[in-house]
Each structure stands twice: as structure tokens, then as C-alpha cells.
């Protein structure tokens, strides 16, 4: 029984939040890695792209709530998601046309593109703050829990409760659907194959008649969809605050690099590695250890939660030192 209690406590505080957070990071890292693979630069504006997409979703959700459209137990934000994706796609295509295309034609060095993306980050950040303000916004509605701690205790008779929030369930389901769609697109469709070809070897792809502008456009469209989904899921799970998305940049980049920049599979693995390390290292293990018979004197928390960025950073450093191409052998140029 104690072992089961330990397992439930572990799931409640480590596994479930870790899986939800990992899915959000994986979606974000997929966007970063796609841009890196096709456009060949690290996009510093990615966090703020997520914030922009999520902001559109928040606004549409409020409008829908206002006129009484809803999904019952599910959050209305899911209905708003397609509109938010469209909004984000429009923003990214306009940005590409106005900003990035010029440098692509110039064949500018990647580091120049990174600086340009810094400027885009400023503008997007300003735009989001300008439209919705810098404060916390709540937009989740519907049923709060799939299983609440009390129901779980009554059902199983254990001392420990297991809580699964609706948003956590939705995060995982939506992320699985998004990733499945992405891999289907990349592996089965003609456009997806041309994208992978372009990422592997630009010159060869151009020689075989692949239109680079088309590939780039599809990349931005997919990135918009991924970033918005990640942003909305994160916002539903925690809350929407523009500055937090900027801070997500570090774990997202860490995920993409740990997995191997340019490798979609690596981005997903990296997302979960970073998420689980953050959660396990900042979790106080006292409770779980007590159930399995140990008598720890302190909380057995390796690091306080304020240092969760340090965790992703240290993992990033270890990977950079010992395997700079990442776990899945991404690009190492």
C-alpha cells in the first residue's frame, strides 16, 4: 500500500505535470528546430511568437464567452485555437515578407539573422503588450479537473490523491495530434518531403527544382501553428502573461539543442528531458521517500523551484560539452 501511495504521490507531483510541461516545451522546440533546419538561424522571437498566438486566442476566447459560445466541459480556447493560428500565420508571413526575405536574398550570415530576430522580438513583445497589456490574463473555463484528489482517494482508498487537470489532459492530447500531423506532413506529403530535402542539402534541393520560397512559406505556416498551440496550451495550463513566454525561450532552446538542432524527433525528446529534469530536481522528495521507508530529515529538494532555469541550463551545458550535436545528431555547422 505504501508503495502504491508513493507511486501516486510521484505521479501527482512529478509525472503528470512533467508530461504536460514536456509536451508544451516539445511543441515550442519543434518550432525552433524547424526554423533552424530550414531557415538556418536561431529564432529569438519564438517566445514572443507564442505569446502573440496565445494573445489572439485569449481575445477570441473572450469574444466567444461574451456571445455565449462554449464547449461545455472543455475550455472555449480550443475553439479559438484555429483562429489564433490563422492570426499568427498572418503575422509570421508579413514578418517574413517585410523582414527576413531581404536577408535571405542577401545570403546574410546566420548571426545577422539572429540579430534581426531580436528586433522582431522587440516588436512582437511591444505589440502584445500594446494590445493586451503586460498583466496576467485568465481565459480557461469549463471543467477544472478530470480527476480531483478527493475523487481519486474515494475511488481507490489510498491516502494520496491524484489530480489531473483538464488542461493537462488536453495538453497531452492536442500535442499528440499536432506532432502526429506534423510527422505525417513531413514524411508523407510532397511539400513535407521537399522541406526535409531542403533542410538536408539546400543546393541539391534547389537543383532538383524545389522552390525555396514555397518551402520557407510552409515552414512559417507550420511554425505559426506549432507556436500558437504551444502558447495556448501553456497559457491554459498556467496563465497567460507576456513576459513568461519570453522566459520560456531558454528551456525551449535547451530542448531543441539537447535533442539536436534541426531534428524534429530530437526536439520532442529534448522537451521531455528538460521538463522532467526541471520537475524532478525542484521537487521535494520527502513524501515519496517516507512512503518507501526512508526517514529523510529535510525536504530532500535538490534545488528550490526558483532555479528551474538553472536546471535546463546545466543540462544544456553538459550536452554542449560532451555531445555538441545533441542526442539525435542534429546539424553541427
Amino acid at each position: 500500500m505504501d508503495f502504491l501511495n508513493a507511486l501516486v504521490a510521484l505521479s501527482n507531483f512529478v509525472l503528470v505535470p512533467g508530461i504536460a510541461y514536456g509536451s508544451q516545451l516539445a511543441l515550442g522546440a519543434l518550432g525552433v528546430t524547424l526554423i533552424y533546419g530550414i531557415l538556418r538561424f536561431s529564432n529569438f522571437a519564438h517566445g514572443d511568437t507564442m505569446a502573440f498566438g496565445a494573445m489572439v486566442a485569449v481575445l477570441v476566447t473572450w469574444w466567444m464567452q461574451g456571445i455565449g459560445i462554449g464547449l461545455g466541459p472543455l475550455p472555449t480556447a480550443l475553439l479559438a485555437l484555429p483562429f489564433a493560428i490563422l492570426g499568427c500565420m498572418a503575422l509570421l508571413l508579413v514578418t517574413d515578407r517585410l523582414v527576413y526575405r531581404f536577408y535571405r536574398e542577401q545570403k546574410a550570415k546566420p548571426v545577422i539573422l539572429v540579430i534581426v530576430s531580436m528586433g522582431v522580438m522587440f516588436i512582437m513583445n511591444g505589440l502584445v503588450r500594446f494590445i493586451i497589456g503586460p498583466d496576467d490574463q485568465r481565459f480557461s473555463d469549463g471543467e477544472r479537473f478530470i480527476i480531483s484528489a478527493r475523487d481519486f482517494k474515494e475511488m481507490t482508498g489510498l491516502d494520496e490523491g491524484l489530480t489531473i487537470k483538464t488542461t493537462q489532459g488536453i495538453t497531452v492530447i492536442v500535442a499528440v495530434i499536432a506532432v502526429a500531423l506534423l510527422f505525417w506532413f513531413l514524411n508523407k506529403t510532397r511539400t513535407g518531403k521537399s522541406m526535409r530535402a531542403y533542410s538536408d542539402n539546400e543546393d541539391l534541393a534547389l537543383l532538383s527544382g524545389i522552390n525555396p520560397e514555397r518551402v520557407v512559406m510552409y515552414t512559417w505556416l507550420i511554425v505559426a501553428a506549432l507556436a500558437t498551440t504551444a502558447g495556448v496550451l501553456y497559457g491554459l495550463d498556467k496563465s497567460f502573461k507576456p513576459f513568461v513566454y519570453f522566459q520560456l525561450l531558454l528551456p525551449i532552446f535547451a530542448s531543441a539543442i539537447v535533442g539536436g538542432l534541426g531534428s524534429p524527433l530530437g526536439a520532442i525528446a529534448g522537451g521531455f528531458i528538460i521538463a522532467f529534469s526541471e520537475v524532478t530536481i525542484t521537487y521535494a522528495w520527502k513524501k515519496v521517500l517516507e512512503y518507501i521507508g526512508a526517514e529523510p530529515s529535510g525536504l530532500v529538494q535538490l534545488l528550490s523551484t526558483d532555479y528551474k532555469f538553472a536546471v535546463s541550463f546545466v543540462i544544456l551545458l553538459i550536452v554542449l560539452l560532451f555531445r555538441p550535436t545533441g542526442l539525435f545528431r542534429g546539424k553541427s555547422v
Partner: protein
Amino acid sequence: MSVPVKNTLLFALVGGLILLTGFMQSWNSALLIMNMGLVSAVMAIGVNLQWGFAGLFNVGVMGFVALGGLAVVLVSTDVRPEAWADGGWGIVLALLLGAATVIAAVYVSRRVPKGMARTVAMLAVLIGGFFVYRAVLDPNVSAVEALNPAAAGNIGGLGLPVLLAWPAGALLAAGAAWLIGKTALGLRSDYLAIATLGIAEIIIAVLKNEDWLARGVKNVIGLPRPVPYEIDLQGDPAFVERAAGVGLDPVTASTLYVKVGYSILFLIVLLVLLWMAQMALKSPWGRMMRAIRDNEVAAEAMGKDVTRRHLQVFVLGSAVCGIAGAMMTTLDGQLTPGSYQPLRFTFLVWVMVIVGGSGNNFGAVLGAMLIWFLWVQVEPIGLWLMQVITSGMAEDNALRLHLIDSAAHMRLLTMGVILLLVLRFSPRGLIPEK
């Protein structure tokens, strides 16, 4: 128009803008802009050393600036012997143990042959070391933080003159930069960017959470100043008399006097650093740096140790940012870790360097003064603009209220637009590299 004339005119323009602020608003705000502009110029010189000379992309400026601020607290606040007696030495011991663990791990990774044995040995060293470190650190930290937590609760400082904190800030920042450079330099250029972004966040997290160090988010206020206090000046009959002689009331005169004092100090530091950077640029060392920046492969073929030179210039540039951070904290008279925002302290400095002209020290200084002026003034201009645009709307129109409320966020938007426009149409900046 010849180049020197154009450059003089550009500097005169910025000087004119600051003078205009003095006439239109007040001399106090003009001097405020000027002082922070000078500090920003020092930061811009640091970033220019890294980016302009060597092409290193450092987005962790905020972290090095914050370390400079920490140096001010550690050097200039009063000594607290009771804190050292209760746990200060224990904390130092714990930190040494932590460092020893890392060194031992590096030693293991160098000496033990690659394979399972090495991984196991390294993990054992690191995990064992971590628990020893925490076991020594935690009780000492609680002891120090329990001492008079409302007013202090930290290990205090060395009680030295505050000006000594400026070189100390440079040393702290240089140490952090060396650690980061050792790991991230020599890899792809983006990796350094992400590593520096990370270290900056971590430095801020440490400053916010380690109360024993500099009181965390409880802030350290009332730091010693290198210039006299306004109150003392107002109480000094000689000063009041002199102020009356120029036709100023003692309160205004004293605030102006203090600010001019800071300006002079900052100007001296800026000029010394500018001179040093100019000399470095002209020296064989500077030519080598630019050669490495322009073609790493060729420079390496000529026998230059690229990674080592990069590490050198990265440490130097970060040290300059550390000095700037110490100067800024001295100017503020307080250390508030909560106020360090990457957009303000990292990315804004980048806008300064790029707008001014990367690779040119005078460009960096000009860009810093100009962009700082805009950063301060865009908000009132934006507010005014919004009021003009919305003047046709009703007083309580929701859109009007929203627009006026949001005018404060115009800053980021403007900075982004300026950065993109300069990169697109004048990528070499206002004063291009020669």
C-alpha cells in the same frame, strides 16, 4: 562632408538633444539622461569589444551588469563580523567544496579513460559533492539569514570605498565570463548566444533568491556614495551662499551638484575605457581580432589560436559590462535584483551598438547616448502622440483610454523598429567601422 565633421555633428546633435531636455523639461532630467547615457556608453563599449572586434554574440549583458551591482554591495557595505562568525566562513567553505567538486569531476573526465567507468565515477563525484556542499551550506545560510533579517540578514560587505567596487565588478563579471567562455566558445556562434542568455537568467535568479548574499528581493538600499549627500550640501552655509550667488535655490543646486559629480566620475571612466579600446583596436592585437572575425579559417591557418583569443576578448568585454553595472548601482544607490529585465539590459545595449556602428568605439558611445535618450523620451512622446490621435474621440471612449494606457509600451515597439530599419538600410550604423 568629411567623416570627422559628420561625426562631430552627430555628437553635437546628441548633446543638443540633452541640452534641449534641459531647457524644455528640467536640468535634473537632462542630467539623469546624461548619467545613464554615460553608463550605457560603457556597456556599449563592452559589447562592441565582443561583437564589433571579434564577432561574438553575447546576449547575457544583463547578467554581467548585475554582477557589477553585486560587487558594489559586497565591497562597500559595512562589515558584519557577527554574520561572519555565525556562518559566513561556513558559506565560504561550502562554496569552496562546491568548486572542488566541479574540479574533481573535470579531473576525472580528463584522467579516466572513456567508457562506463568514467560516467559512473563522474556521477559519483558530482552527486556526492553536491550533498556534501548542501550539508555544509544550508545550516550556515540559515544562521546568516536569521541575523537581523528585517534590516540585514546577509554577510555584509568589506566596508571599502565604493569606487573600489567598480574594478571589483569587472573582476566578478570577468570570472563568470571565463566560466561561460570556457564551455561555449569554440562551438557554433548561436550556442554562445543561448549559453549567455542562460547565465544571465541564472545570475539574476541567484541574486533574487540568495538572501545571505545581497538580501535577495528585499533589496539593498542606502549604498555609500562617492559624492556628497544633498542634505549635507543644503546644510552647508558655504554651499548655500555659492548657490545663491548663481541664482539657484539650495535644493535644486544641491541635486544638480550631486548629478554633475556623478557625470564627471562617469565621464572619466568612459574616456579611459574609450582610450583603451581605441588603442586596442589600433594595436596588432586589434588587427588580429578583426582578422579572426572576418575569416576564422584563414586566421587559424596563420597560426592564431581562435578559441583562446575569443575567450580573451569575451572576458574583457564582460569585465567592461561589469564596471558599467557597478557604476549604475552606485548611481542608483541601491541594488534591486527584481528590476533587471533582459529587454532593458541586454537587448537595448545591442540596439545601441548596432545603431551606433558595430566595430567603431565612437559609434558605440554615440549609439548608447542617442538610444538612451530615445528610450527615456519615447514614452512622453508616445503619450503625447496618442493624445493627439485620439483627441477627436469622446473622453471616455474605450479605445481612447486603451491607447493612452498602452502608450507606455511604445518603447519596445520603437526600439524594434529602429533596430530593423538600421539593420536593413544602414547595417554599418551611424559611425561605420573604418
